[in-house]
């Protein structure tokens, strides 16, 4: 069961809202499908991201996977610790494995995202 305090994309990112700022990471399903994460590329503070476009890359030993922006906004914080410890994404995808914090430019973007129940349903056969 995915955490109910956040929203989900079809590309397996999660978004957790706290006022105007949203924390973004990838789901447990995604980290499990990727396997051992060895490299993460995330934007710089101040970068402006557009919903649906890629904001970075996560790589496992075997695979390269793009990261998709769940909602438009400006990057206000990044998880720099992932550079040296990308495996954090495997160990704690919903906690210390977070990737970026965004100040959302249009909160209504989040209405297109899935709830935890919808996401679990979406991934149950995958």
């Amino acid at each position: 069961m995915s955490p109910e305090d956040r929203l989900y994309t079809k590309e397996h990112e999660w978004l957790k809202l706290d006022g105007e700022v949203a924390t973004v990471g990838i789901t447990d399903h995604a980290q499990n499908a990727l396997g051992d994460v060895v490299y993460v590329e995330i934007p710089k503070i101040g970068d402006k991201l557009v919903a649906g476009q890629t904001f970075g890359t996560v790589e496992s030993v075997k695979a390269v996977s793009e990261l998709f922006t769940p909602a438009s906004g400006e990057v206000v914080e990044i998880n720099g610790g992932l550079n040296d410890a990308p495996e954090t994404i495997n160990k704690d995808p919903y906690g210390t494995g977070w990737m970026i914090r965004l100040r959302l430019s249009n909160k209504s973007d989040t209405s297109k995202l899935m709830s935890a129940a919808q996401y679990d349903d979406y991934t149950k056969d995958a």
Partner: protein
Amino acid sequence: MSDSKRTSLYEVHKRLGARLIPFGGWDMPVEYSGIAKEHRAVRTAAGLFDVSHMGELEIQGPEALKLIQAVTTNDAALLADGHAQYSAMAYPSGTVVDDLLVYRRGAEDYLLVVNAGNIQKDFDWIQSHNHFNATLKNISDEVTLLAVQGPNSAGILQSLTRIRLSEIGYYQFVQGKVLDADAIVSRTGYTGEDGFEIYFSPKHSESIWNSIIETGQPHGLVPAGLGARNTLRLEAKMLLYGNDMDENTTLLEAGLGWIVKPEKGDFIGRDSLVRQKQQGVTRKLVGFEMLGREIARDHYPAFVDGLEAGHVTSGSPSITLNKNIGLAYLPADKAAIASRFQVSIRNRMCDAEVVKTPFYKRTQNS
């Protein structure tokens, strides 16, 4: 897309929680407990691989050796009974039909082990050149192939067979029993570690697999998938057909000149390969390390002096060395050790350096 073939151990892999992916027309386990963990187990203890997707072609008869000599580039006449040889088949242009192992079971009895994706192509190729008193038979579906690889392999496998494994030298094999099964046990592999490959009938697949797992677990053995097999073979610079060489690259460009033996007499591709050796190759397969954190992957373009000059054929994190490594074709005059070039990764130029290979070489075991 579910017309992929399954090995006799498919259900076992599923029970073990393997992630299965299509590979060379087969549904194969890519990982069980994680590529990195499986990779380290093979380097330090042991791993068990189901590689039954590989093909086995039998060549028998009074002129079996003549046929093999005609279609392969290495000199199979050097083989004694019980010896195996790494070899290749070339097109007339010197490019690669396939790389393979040749096992000599007897003077008129050979076994060729070929890549999964090439079984039919290889069979047809050999058959079309079979102007000899030799019979060719594809026995791939009648053979399970397990690889036990890693420093603890001999100890683990010894408890399942009366074959004296310590007497089997590298690239040698013995025919005997493993548990109740008639088997070929060969000291070969695709990981850069000591280890064995075991060929036997699929009716024994589950019992032998399970016995190796049970016997091996206390000695650190884990089931390992194609993911670890790829990172292990790349560190040892063992080439992968379809990536590092294929019908568009010659054996000499791929650095496989050591299995091309023009002195043995005529064979398909000989003239082109001799000419290319005299004239020199224009491009070469090199090993490289990335200088930054980025990971070069298969097919990424390589740039020299700002111009696209080749491509990465295999690229991956090296789990043993904790670096990002790969193989790439570069112009021969830019391919010296310590040469710098760039790999384009998501439209960014990332620095790489040509290094000596293999990237990893095991310390000889006692």
